[in-house]
């Protein structure tokens, strides 16, 4: 029997129309999600929570919305663990209720999407705040298993392990994080870790370097060379670092941090012209690198180019403030829907604490340029003032 196309298409179009009305709610929910992102960016959390509630009403089976609602309400929670705090009173009743509500939302998120690594991570943090360390350990481990390539999860887990006095396990997690992203060596986290555990910090960089050397013996890889170069740079072995970074830059000139690190090595060796060229190359490849602006600004300050220095130092601060969300890079590929504009990691200071911070040096530079402006001087310790998510008790 040959069926006329007319009836088939009419039926299909009617079904499609029904489907369109069905997903019309979903489109409206995504619009609410976009509004949520904008509200969070402007720190308007009450409106943000309203928008995400509306999104959930419209699309109750979208797991990510529950994660975002939990994130939204969690803004009321302390951004530091209170375990070793002078405040022995712990969580207030209100904070406890908020934590329980957030837990419920993360649970629902993970029921709908068992591969939401951020949800596992954030749930771990909240369980830790509530004192359920067994569940927290399980969820932190799950986050690192679901997304093993995310350095932030390893760092976060490591910090909790360190707080729990499992120093070896913490060190192992820190090492994995640094092997994935050696830029962590420039973060407030690592500088404080170096202060309280200098031997452990040194051991981490040494072990990581050994592992990477082993990798390079198995086969040349410019990315491992770039990471190893950064490690040697942080350990002060400038000739070896320079050799590795130059080799990496010849093979893959599109790696912006290679040029940045190479520039710092040239600067350390007194070749400011070559350093400037490398910083400019880093910016040509990726114009969002705050540290490149900072390094250029400091060089210009040394040369007496005050106007240019002021511009670049201010650029460094702007770029640092608008650092690309770390979890968004993955999430925009993992999930269909509006582009994620913010980080969804708890505690909210985690990202600032574990990524390189250029703000202090930039404010210090501006303070030297404009000694009369007190606000620059007031902010010159900004990076050092970023709080650690965990207080490490009696640990040095």
């Amino acid at each position, binding site marked *: 029997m040959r069926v006329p*196309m007319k009836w088939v*298409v*009419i039926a299909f179009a009617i079904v499609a129309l029904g489907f369109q009305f069905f997903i019309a709610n979903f489109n409206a929910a995504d619009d609410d999600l976009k509004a949520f992102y904008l509200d969070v960016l402007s720190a308007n959390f009450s409106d943000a929570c309203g928008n995400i509630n509306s999104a959930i009403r419209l699309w109750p089976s979208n*797991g990510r919305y529950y994660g975002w609602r939990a994130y939204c309400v969690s803004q009321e929670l302390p951004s530091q663990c209170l375990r070793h705090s002078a405040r022995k009173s712990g969580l207030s009743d209100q904070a406890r209720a908020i934590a329980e509500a957030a837990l419920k939302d993360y649970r629902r998120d993970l029921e709908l999407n068992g591969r939401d690594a951020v949800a596992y991570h954030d749930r771990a943090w909240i369980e830790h705040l509530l004192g359920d360390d067994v569940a927290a350990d399980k969820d932190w481990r799950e986050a690192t298993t679901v997304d093993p390539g995310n350095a932030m999860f390893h760092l976060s887990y490591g910090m909790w392990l360190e707080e729990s006095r499992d120093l070896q396990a913490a060190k192992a997690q820190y090492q994995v994080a640094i092997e994935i992203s050696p830029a962590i060596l420039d973060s407030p986290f690592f500088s404080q870790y170096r202060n309280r555990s200098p031997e452990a910090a040194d051991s981490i960089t040494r072990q990581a370097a050994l592992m990477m050397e082993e*990798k390079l013996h198995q086969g040349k890889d410019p990315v491992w060379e770039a990471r190893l170069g950064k490690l040697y740079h942080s350990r002060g072995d400038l000739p070896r670092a320079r050799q590795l970074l130059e080799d990496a830059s010849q093979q893959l000139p599109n790696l912006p941090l290679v040029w940045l690190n190479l520039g710092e090595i040239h600067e350390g060796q007194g070749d400011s012209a070559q350093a400037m*060229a490398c910083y400019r190359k880093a910016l040509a490849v990726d114009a969002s690198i705050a540290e490149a602006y900072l390094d250029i600004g400091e060089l210009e300050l040394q040369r007496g180019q005050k106007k240019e220095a002021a511009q670049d130092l201010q650029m460094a601060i702007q770029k640092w403030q608008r650092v690309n969300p770390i979890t968004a890079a*993955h999430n925009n*590929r993992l*999930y*269909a829907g509006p582009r994620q504009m913010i980080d969804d990691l708890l505690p909210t200071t985690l990202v600032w604490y574990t990524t390189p911070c250029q703000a202090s040096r930039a404010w210090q530079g501006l303070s030297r340029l404009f000694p009369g402006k007190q606000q620059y001087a007031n902010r010159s310790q900004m990076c050092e003032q970023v709080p650690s998510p965990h207080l490490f008790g009696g640990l040095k």
Partner: protein
Amino acid sequence: MYRETLNALGIGRESGKVTNADDFLGSTGSPHVIQDIASNSHDDLQSLRMARFIAKHQFEIASLPAEHAYIAWAVGMAMLIASLYIQARIAEFCLLLVALGSSILSRNANMKMRPVDWSVLSISAVEVISIFYSQYSANSIRSAWLVVCAILIYYLIRINIRTATQVALLSTLLGIAAVGLSFYGLRLFTVNARLLGAAGFSQLVPFRSRLISPPSSWLPGEWFTVLLMGLPFSFAILVRYLIDKKKRQIVVATLPTLVVTLTLLLSLSRAVFWSLVLFFSLACALLILYRLVPPRTSALLVGIVFTALLVIVSSESIIYPGLYRAYIRQDISQTRSTAGRFGIWNRAFALVGTHPFVGIGSGNTALALLSTTDQEDTAGFASRAFSLPVQVVVENGMFGCILYSTFLILIFTEFTYFMRRPHIQSEPSIRPAKLKNNCMEIGIRSRYLQSQKAMACCFMAGLVCILFRELTYSSLFEHSLTLILFVTLAALAWSPLGAECESP
């Protein structure tokens, strides 16, 4: 004229089931109506007379005044497809209304469903059903909607784009859109190449993903897929004028193809480059195979096309030294890219083992690959399957793979079947024909314009080149526009050819 024709052919109330003369006169007098009459007639002699009448008059539908209304369909389709580039939600709603309207109002909608039409419907059913067993249904809902929109476009093309003029007009408009995208890409390339040059970078190949940065929801690879799909439309117009020997129009029609090719060669992507070569090779081969161009013209066409490719690559390499290296040598970034792909495919095949029959649900490949990575892997995050067949197998399982493959095989089958039919050149000629479908039944020998067949060859070549490109990149299901352009090519590759043969 028509009343006299009816009288001459002895058609009237006494002919049985034939519609009456008033109905016929009230119609547009389109060949479809004449076919209606012929097919309803039980008089073989009458059918033969009708066949001779049709054969005598070359049915270029657009030449009949009332058929100009159908040209509006081509314009409307082009606008609808173009609006999907900016992902305007209203476009999807308009698409539905247009589909309903054309199904109800168009006489063409009375044509019978062919196996490929059912195949497309089965794909949509599988995609919608997959929402219920998907690992993350929020992703699959969006993918399913994307497929539904694409299928609606497919049916719209089938119903409304039937004649050579409609195909030509739609192709012209989409070709012009491709030219617009090309100029946008050329400008970006020039600016970014200059910036990199000013910073001291001499090699462009490692920076190929940064040279043309499309609007935010698009990745460069996806953008090039859209541009690659614009090429068959612009080339089809050139070929049409070549067949019709309109020299002035040939010169003008060459420019869009040239501009699009120029931009595609700036992609510095091996897959895009070889897809381009494959497209031109296959298009020329099909034109020769089906004898749509004389041997001398075909040799000239092949020579000109490949010479032009060579000249463009050489010229671009002079302006941007080292550009040709992207296509003849392996840059380290390209080696890593290839190695990364193999790594991802291995991981994806491991996933297939866990859900072999129905897959993990559309849109979930990246999510599923997330935890399969080795933290010592430096290839980077697997944001997609980087191969369309792999993506289909992972997301839809073997069952979905069979359905999609069936669809493609049926498209190729329909194309081959209709391409073997004789075509009209400048003078219609009646020869006995051995036909195996309705045309035989109604005694009408099917005829196609030579130029229509030539355009179909271009669309088929385009389809193959896109599938070739998608062997190492998966972009068709990332945006509604990419999938819709694909089904447009698929529908145009054979459907208008069958227009004269499909009886209601």
